[in-house]
């Protein structure tokens, strides 16, 4: 296995296995797993009655009700199905700009969630993106597939690092919609520095039906850059230049723009019953992820 980035660190995975993702509800027509489904069928736990209709299995008729009421009703049981988890790590140029790169943190987060999902028999899809969505890795399940996912992620990362591209989350999300995947947990792991702006990002996010979990990979200097005097900032992805005379006022406006940007992401996530996590690239990843898993579980 080509594991250049050492994603399958045993200690790291051991910590991940202590966490669980619990879905409030999963979309119907999934595989059997550990999550309650909106489907009514072969489960163990009784949920409801409904009138009999032609085509229903006779064994599902509750004969006791028929004896008392003279009507045919069918007993419904809760179906336990899987929660599809779609991992979208950002592998754009900005994620590779620093040392160590933020992409490595993003990959660790992705592997952690992949490990959690595969352990609870969920289908895990790996969809790295930069300028576009990489759809070559299909969703898969089974505990033994973690190494396969790690290998695929490593291969995608090396390709992205050797041929860095800009960020276009909107295009990636649009393409994701086109895949018509079953509703699930969409985990976007990125710095969210999309040059197209927050409005384009949130607009496209709102069109997806998946429950969002937005993990932002950042560092303190993102909000408080250590710049003084007259500087010409150059965007590492677009090459755009911007002359800036650093003053207190400009810095305040910068921080206000930064805060507004991420507040929009946070508001969006909450509006969709999702979550937003600002993860410090320079701190321990697993400890920060643990803040999502209250009591060891993350309710999606």
């Amino acid at each position, binding site marked *: 296995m080509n594991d250049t980035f050492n994603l399958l660190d045993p200690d790291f995975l051991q910590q991940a296995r202590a966490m669980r993702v619990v879905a409030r509800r999963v979309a119907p027509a999934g595989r059997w797993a550990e999550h309650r489904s909106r489907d009514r069928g072969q489960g163990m736990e009784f949920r409801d009655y409904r009138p009999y209709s032609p085509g229903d299995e006779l064994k599902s008729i509750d004969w006791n009700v028929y004896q008392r009421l003279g009507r045919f009703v069918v007993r419904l049981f809760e179906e336990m199905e899987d929660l599809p988890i779609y991992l979208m790590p950002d592998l754009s140029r900005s994620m590779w700009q620093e040392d160590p790169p933020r992409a490595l943190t993003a990959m660790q987060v992705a592997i952690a969630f992949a490990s959690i999902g595969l352990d609870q028999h969920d289908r895990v899809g790996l969809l790295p993106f930069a300028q576009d969505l990489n759809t070559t890795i299909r969703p898969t399940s089974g505990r033994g597939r973690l190494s396969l996912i790690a290998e695929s992620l490593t291969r995608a990362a090396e390709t992205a690092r050797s041929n860095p591209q800009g960020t276009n989350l909107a295009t990636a999300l649009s393409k994701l919609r086109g895949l018509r995947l079953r509703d699930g947990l969409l985990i976007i792991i990125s710095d969210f520095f999309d040059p197209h702006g927050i409005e384009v990002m949130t607009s496209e996010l709102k069109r997806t039906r998946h429950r969002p979990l937005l993990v932002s990979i950042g560092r303190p200097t993102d909000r408080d850059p250590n710049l003084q005097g007259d*500087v010409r*900032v*150059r965007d590492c992805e677009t090459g*755009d230049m*911007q002359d800036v005379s650093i003053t*207190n*006022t400009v810095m305040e*406006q910068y921080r206000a723009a930064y805060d507004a940007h991420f507040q929009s992401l946070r508001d969006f996530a909450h509006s969709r019953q999702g979550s937003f996590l600002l993860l410090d690239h320079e701190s321990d990843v697993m400890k920060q992820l643990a803040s999502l898993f209250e009591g060891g579980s993350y309710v999606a």
Partner: protein
Amino acid sequence: MTFTLFSTLATLGGIALLAIALALLQRLRVQHREVEVLSTLFWRAALKETRARVFVRRFRHWPAWLLLVVIASLLWLLLAGPRWQPLNPTRHIVLLDGSIANKTTLAIDLELATTKAASLPIMQREIVTAGPHLQTLLAPGDPIELTNLRANLETTPASTGIHWALETLSSRASATTPLAIHIIGDVAVDQAYLESLPPELIIYRIQRPPSDDQALLRALGVSNAKSGNWQMVDVLFASSTPQVFDVQQISITVDDLPIQAEILPADNGDFLIEDLPAQGGVLKLRHGEEQLGSLTLPHRDAIRVSFETGVPNDLRELILLDPACQETQSDPEILIGESEFADFRLTPDDQSAFQIESELPDPQAALAKLIDELALTQIDATALAERSGRLVDVQVTSGEERKLSMWKTLFTPAFNFQQSRACPILVARSIRWLANRPPLVSWAEQGMRLPDARPAFDRVIAQTTTTSDGRTLQVTRLTRSITEPAEIIDSPNPGLLAGIGITTWLGLVAMFLLLTEWVLYQRGRLP
């Protein structure tokens, strides 16, 4: 447009240099340090927000706006050069005594003058020095520092006094704009003259601090010897610091050779040295090791005259009675006779009454001066013309040397001229003019014109006065007054903040507001 501190060329050059420097600074400002960042998204948003606030966002920073308006208005007012319209229209002139030959005293006076001027309204004060002529050291509106730049610290003692300066300056006073003249130092002003001044002219005096440790002369001059000896002069001097002036410490040298002469007390506390030889030596007075002053004694050797035959006896006796003249038979300076070789030539009545041959290149231009110098104005020309039946005229020509011709009949009883008071004066002046021996300026003192001042005596160069015969009269402070000195009230003391112009106040307020703006900006209180 004129400029106070610089010439027009220097000012324009300075503007050009400033423009170039500012252009370079402007260029330096756009040399941004390039920094690669993950995203310029927030920088663009920040700058967009900043620009929007300045130009298009709704107005919401009234205090900041007001502060900037006040600062900009103050700077604009400074640029416009504001001037107070004074409540008191009195103009002030601080008058320096330009005859001061002592550099230390002059420096003290100059400091007193600038201190006083600094306390007066800037547009209503000036500093004028009364030397050989009136010189403005500080004009209204000029920065006070210009005084020292313009002050000629090379002393130019003048004998023309300060009354003429007061006369000249008094013409500036009027009923609507009174004039206050603040005289620096102890220069004497005649009480009678002071009382004759118009009421709109107020004279103040600014007292010089007493000089307790340095002996100074107040006056130094020569006069004819009381003994009547033509070849001797008396020297008179006066001290301005009698408390430290010890006559026993006075030493006298002539041409650096010590002479033993008795110093006699004279009137008014002055001192007299009698019968010093008038041989053109340089007299120096020392008080201990300190030189008090120096004076070039006149050269009063005898004028050697010789007479041709036929000279009227009255004229001969008149000349020989003059102690300055001495008859000689050989190598005379002045030959008196009727021949064409005579310097003092007696001519027939059919020629011009007075013919003057001067070495001056343009004697016609100096005619009035010559007539005055030869005392021809004292002749009763009308009576002389009536008696002679001829026109009494004066002809002036140019020649290699001085010659003088006049009617021989003037010195005969025919016209009765030899009995007039003008005759001996004319003869004495003529002999002295021919021998180039001008009358002695017996005394020079400040506060009064020279007794027999001529333009040549009024031209003062450095510490020397050049007499008309080319001799040099070195002078020191000429402050001896023979008139009743006036008691002049002291110049009123200014207030602590007096003399600070509106420009200074505006500049201070603008500086304070700029500092306030900077502090507020640094603390983030100002957008």
